[in-house]
């Protein structure tokens, strides 16, 4: 405990020393102001706390409260009741693309450091590039799976596999790959074809509503393989060195930080977005946890272990998600998959 505390504060001061010169003049004085950040939880949010939230709070004087599970529908419900409880949410970029100007407010930011490939809307700041990898237990599979498509090969790779419930979790893309679709031809998704493949393997698949039990279940032998964000797979490998990840065919996407319309602390939230739109801030997070950046500039150097779980180490193997397609089809896919797995 003492050592972790010490390490945390040491790395915090280091982060401050590194981050402050670049971003400090841009950061306003927010003493007495507060904002609520909703992230995806887990180790990602723990590291976001170290890389973004604590330095930002220290530099501006703002008080930041954190929560998790930022569902779009929850935000809409709060907007309907005119009582929005979050100021900055982390959510898939496709969701922000599709709801920019309605659910999320447009913000005027200095976007010069952002990578134009990822900077696709006027509301969000692209962050946290990640891949849905196939994570597996090497002890269980002496001949390891070679592609995300092997998630659906229950003959060659028998065993229980886990994935998250919901729509945009890497499953439909993997099903199409398994059915012989070329990576370049996945979008627009042929949903019927994907569902047929999923139905065939359904008996070996366990769905959970959140990633944490999947990560832990993979690490302690509950599941033999799983579709996980690469960071969750990395964590599972820390708990159990037999856990490996396959990036071939892994759907790769990224999140946005965005401000919901009606947020109570929009001013502080905007300053936070500006802070996160700098390469220094994003690289600091990528150094701590193997998720990619949404900014221009060199990806940070990683040590051997996390390198094996970092999307940028496998750029030529990934399937880049068509965020436009997902933006307009997510609800339909969710509905379809729900009913496939309900029976």
């Amino acid at each position, binding site marked *: 405990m003492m050592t972790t505390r010490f390490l945390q504060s040491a790395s915090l001061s280091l982060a401050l020393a590194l981050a402050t010169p670049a971003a400090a003049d841009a950061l306003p004085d927010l003493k007495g102001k507060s904002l609520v950040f909703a992230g995806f939880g887990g180790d990602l949010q723990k590291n976001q706390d170290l890389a973004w939230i604590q330095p930002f709070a220290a530099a501006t004087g703002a008080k930041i409260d954190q929560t998790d599970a930022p569902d779009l529908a929850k935000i809409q419900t709060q907007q309907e009741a005119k*009582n929005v*409880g979050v100021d900055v949410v982390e959510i898939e970029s496709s969701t922000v693309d599709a709801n920019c100007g309605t659910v999320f407010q447009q913000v005027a930011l200095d976007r010069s450091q952002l990578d134009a490939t990822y900077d696709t809307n006027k509301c969000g700041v692209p962050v946290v590039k990640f891949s849905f990898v196939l994570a597996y237990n090497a002890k269980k599979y002496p001949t390891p799976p070679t592609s995300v498509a092997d998630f659906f090969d229950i003959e060659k790779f028998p065993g229980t596999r886990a994935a998250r419930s919901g729509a945009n979790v890497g499953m439909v893309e993997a099903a199409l790959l398994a059915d012989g679709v070329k990576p370049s031809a996945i979008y627009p998704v042929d949903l019927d074809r994907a569902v047929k493949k999923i139905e065939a393997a359904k008996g070996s698949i366990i769905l959970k509503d959140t990633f*944490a*039990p999947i990560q*832990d279940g993979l690490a302690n032998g509950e599941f033999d393989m799983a579709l996980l964000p690469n960071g969750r797979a990395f964590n599972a490998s820390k708990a159990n060195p037999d856990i490996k990840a396959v990036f071939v065919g892994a759907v790769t996407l990224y999140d946005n930080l965005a401000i919901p319309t009606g947020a109570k602390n929009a001013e502080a939230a905007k300053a936070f977005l500006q802070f996160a739109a700098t390469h220094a801030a994003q690289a600091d997070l990528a150094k701590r946890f193997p998720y990619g950046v949404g900014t221009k500039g060199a990806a940070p150097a990683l040590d051997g272990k996390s390198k094996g779980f970092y999307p940028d180490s496998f750029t030529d193997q990934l399937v880049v998600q068509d965020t436009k397609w997902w933006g307009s089809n997510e609800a339909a896919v969710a509905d379809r998959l729900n009913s496939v797995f309900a029976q």
Partner: protein
Amino acid sequence: MSADTGRKATRWALAGLCTLIGLWLILPLAVIVPISFSGEDSFAFPPQSWTLARYANLVTPQWTQALLNSLVVALLVAGLCAVLGTLAAFAIVRSHSRAMVVLRLLILAPQVVPIIIVGLGVYLVFLGWQLTGTVSGFVIAHAALSLPFVVIPVAASLQTFDRSLERASASLGAAPVATFFQVTFPIIRPAILSGTLLAFLGSFDELVLALFLQSPTFVTLPVQLYRRMTDTIDPTIAAVATIQLGFVIACVIVALVLERRRAAGTKAG
């Protein structure tokens, strides 16, 4: 003779079966204890490495604040239920109005209406009333659920209560309020107390409404535990569980010892 051996065998079988049931009730709770010393961020059993860090974690604000919130809410719920529940019990037992059927149904309804329905409705309504994430919002929602815990025992106690005591007090010139506090209240006090205790526990353990009513700045202990189970794997929850287990066992032992003493006392007297 053979019927007797048969009876004996049945008794032993029954005793064995009930021992198994008792173990089934308790043993799963005990397996949590080693997890609370786990050095990994995992619920794997048994842990590979050991640490006391999970217990040190408990004194960080996110846990102490959640505990404090839960205690404050549960105490206020207990108080509110004690007052409202006793009033309701009086009305139900003493009123002649047929409309009391409505009150009776209303009080029991929150116990049988599926909690998710109440939760969704409360969320929609309380959001608009700015009550989500507030102490008052939690207290109000939990109190509606916990009212029967007080009303049922107090109504039962009032029904066996000898009204002539009150009339005697009144005929001796005591004001109704004085009669209540000097005659009626002492008799129904045990019922109120036990009901209030259950209301406290009901609120302290309540999760579903709390999941809807929580906000980033106001979280209760069950919500914190649930998040640490579903969004982040954190053996700190096992540390909470271990402490809670010790506390519950201590309370139950004290309560049962007191109860047996009391029973023995009444027998002797």
